[in-house]
């Protein structure tokens, strides 16, 4: 018989180790310690910055946003903005214009070059290769300077050229024909939104018939036809959308008369709901059919923090600084005198849905006018791009296209050779193999790195400052040179770029998840 081992120590000795050896206690101390440390660090940094600014005699403030600025911007929807906020908004839209159109153009160009790089035609593939190596290996800043110099070397716009033409390319920039939006465009866009809903409904309706009756219903053609009908009909009947103007007016009135306390309650409820959702999901993930799994100390810590954050959110919005913050955000006090918020948005829309008639868009050719001794492009006809805009747009587009081309090439090469063979073997033509089999699969591989190129393009637009392109960095710098509010401008810059980048990567991630191949 083997005698069972006697336990060396008794259970009671295990039960209570001194706290400096107790793992549970140590973990809590570490968590709270780090939290305190970071809160302290942020406090130090911010209070130091604020006191430094006070030392310079320019106390931190956001006042410049509302005050007149008195500068002229190179371009944008308003070249003589009335306030700091308006100037920054111009910078933001200029940046977004380059980013959005640059992303589209760089993607198309990059895909073409990437495919060309893989062509079996030696000349085509070598030209693509040369393009990639050239644009990839020269700093973007140098390229932007180069394009600017190129545009500026085009020769002066002379008064002899007065009048309209299809195309101008001079040191004053490049002017092309354009569809200029007219007063009725808001109504037209509203009408097209209705059209989009109708198109969706028609498409689903045709697909349903296809599924029920098994007959060919040409769902795609029907949908296209529906939208085309709206596109054409809207041109004539868009003034009827003015009816919505009344709706917007009513909504503006409603939102203008909701007491601040309602918004406070909504925000407080949102904070409580977020905390509740987090805790519920957290516990659900740890629930097994046998019951709730044992929670670790770390889990308890997270639950506590979530609960505390939720509670402090509720407290913040309902008591103390909540009311003044919300009032400021909405731009109104508890006495309902208001200027920003939801009400002005609907007021704005109401002013645009005003039964105005006429074509919503007007086609026009660019025109040279001579108001003084110097010739310039007319602001009303066609569209003129400044040398700075052309330099930045061409620069970031061609530069990013080189990287996208390499990504596309890698994506295509990563598609298994057997896919090509199988697609050829069933009789598809070369172009069909690429379009129907290889590219859809390459697209999935390519999406994540493509997303980071989009982010690069968005951030590289800040180099526009080098050629005085009025994007947000250049505008911000102008503002702090005038007003000295460096910290405030930096905060706006960072928040803006972070917001743009997060939205972009959110879109890319959404598609990435949607496009994942279904596996077991």
């Amino acid at each position, binding site marked *: 018989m083997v005698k069972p081992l006697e336990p060396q120590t008794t259970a009671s000795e295990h039960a209570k180790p001194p706290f400096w050896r107790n793992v549970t206690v140590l973990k809590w101390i570490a968590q709270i310690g780090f939290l305190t440390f970071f809160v302290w660090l942020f406090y130090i940094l911010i209070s130091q910055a604020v006191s430094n600014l006070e030392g310079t005699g320019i106390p931190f403030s956001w006042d410049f946003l509302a005050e007149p600025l008195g500068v002229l911007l190179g371009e944008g929807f308003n070249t003589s903005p009335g306030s700091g906020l308006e100037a920054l908004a111009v910078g933001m839209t200029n940046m977004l214009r380059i980013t959005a159109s640059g992303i589209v153009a760089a993607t198309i160009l990059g895909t073409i070059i990437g495919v060309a790089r893989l062509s079996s035609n030696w000349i085509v593939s070598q030209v693509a290769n040369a393009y990639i190596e050239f644009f990839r290996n020269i700093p973007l800043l140098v390229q932007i300077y180069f394009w600017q110099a190129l545009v500026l070397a085009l020769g002066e716009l002379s008064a002899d050229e007065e009048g309209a033409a299809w195309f101008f390319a001079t040191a004053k920039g490049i002017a092309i024909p354009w569809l200029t939006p007219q007063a009725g465009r808001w109504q037209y866009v509203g009408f097209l939104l209705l059209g989009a809903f109708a198109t969706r409904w028609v498409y689903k309706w045709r697909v349903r018939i*296809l599924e029920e009756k*098994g*007959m*060919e219903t040409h769902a795609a053609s029907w949908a296209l036809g529906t939208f085309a009908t709206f596109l054409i009909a809207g041109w004539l009947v868009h003034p009827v959308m003015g009816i919505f103007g009344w709706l917007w007016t009513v909504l503006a009135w409603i939102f203008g008369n909701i007491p601040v306390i309602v918004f406070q309650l909504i925000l407080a409820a949102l904070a409580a709901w977020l905390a509740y959702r987090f805790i519920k999901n957290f516990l659900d993930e740890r629930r097994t059919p046998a019951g709730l799994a044992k929670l670790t100390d770390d889990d308890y810590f997270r639950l506590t923090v979530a609960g505390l954050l939720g509670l402090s959110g509720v407290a913040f919005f309902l008591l103390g600084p909540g009311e003044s913050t919300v009032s400021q955000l909405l731009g109104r006090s508890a006495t309902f005198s208001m200027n920003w918020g939801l009400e002005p948005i609907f007021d704005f829309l109401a002013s645009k849905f005003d039964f105005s008639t006429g074509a919503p868009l007007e086609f026009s050719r660019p025109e040279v006018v001579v108001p003084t001794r110097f010739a310039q492009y007319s602001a009303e006809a066609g569209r003129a791009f400044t040398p700075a805009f052309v330099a930045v747009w061409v620069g970031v587009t061609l530069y990013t296209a080189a990287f996208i081309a390499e990504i596309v090439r890698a994506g295509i090469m990563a598609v*298994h050779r*057997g*896919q090509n*063979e*199988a*697609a*050829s*073997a*069933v*009789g*598809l*033509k070369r172009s*069909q193999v690429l379009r*129907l*089999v290889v590219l*859809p*699969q390459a697209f*999935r591989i390519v999406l994540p790195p493509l997303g980071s190129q989009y982010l690069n393009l968005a951030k590289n637009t800040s180099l526009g400052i080098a050629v005085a392109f009025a994007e947000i960095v250049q505008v911000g710098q102008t503002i702090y040179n005038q007003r000295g509010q460096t910290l405030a401008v930096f905060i706006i810059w960072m928040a803006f770029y972070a917001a743009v980048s997060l939205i972009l990567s959110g879109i890319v991630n959404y598609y990435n998840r949607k496009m994942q*191949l*279904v*596996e*077991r």
Partner: protein
Amino acid sequence: MTDRKPMIVSEGVKKWFGDFQALRGVTTTVGERDVVVVIGPSGSGKSTFIRCINRLEVHQEGRIVVDGIELTNDLRNIDAIRREVGMVFQSFNLFPHLTVLENITLAPIWVRKQTRTESEENGMQLLERVGIPEQAEKFPGQLSGGQQQRVAIARSLAMNPKVMLFDEPTSALDPEMIKEVLDVMKELAQSGMTMIVVTHEMGFAREVADRVLFFDYGTIVEEGTPEHFFTNPQHDRTKLFLSQIL
């Protein structure tokens, strides 16, 4: 040799990969409704030979004629032959981004210009024929190897080919899935399809083949009926090969 109408004629086909000569003059004729099984050691050129028949590889010397159309550099001939010749691969090569049914209807819609409804009806019939109609809406990644290979066969059949090429269709499968694929191939052979099958499944060769080709060093070393081949092989190389695998 059969007295049937010749479907595939190969005369002195030679093929090099760089310095390496993969095919050293392959001459044979496959008649209509023939089932020809190609066996031989790895690297003997048997896969290369059937891949030359639908131009996945380009032969450098000799002639290949499929259903009266010679395989030349003329794109029209290549497209015409690929429409008539179906191929099943060792690694299935299903399109992973399309559902099973879409895999099958892709080529009929784009190459044969069938309507979607027509091609889907046809596709469902083919899936029933290979025994997996219930998988139509799944993606290839969700199927077992045997099911994937049966989809691949259905995909080829959707083009109504006159000839089916099989390049080691069961080599990548678990033993218990091999049978389900071979059963489909047997049914296909009995229905009168012209087939060339590269395989190591000797049972299949014995049961289904009209003729067996034995490949080694890029040429046909010996050919004959399965009976002749498995009971009375002539060449030493054939005897050695059979003694190692049987």
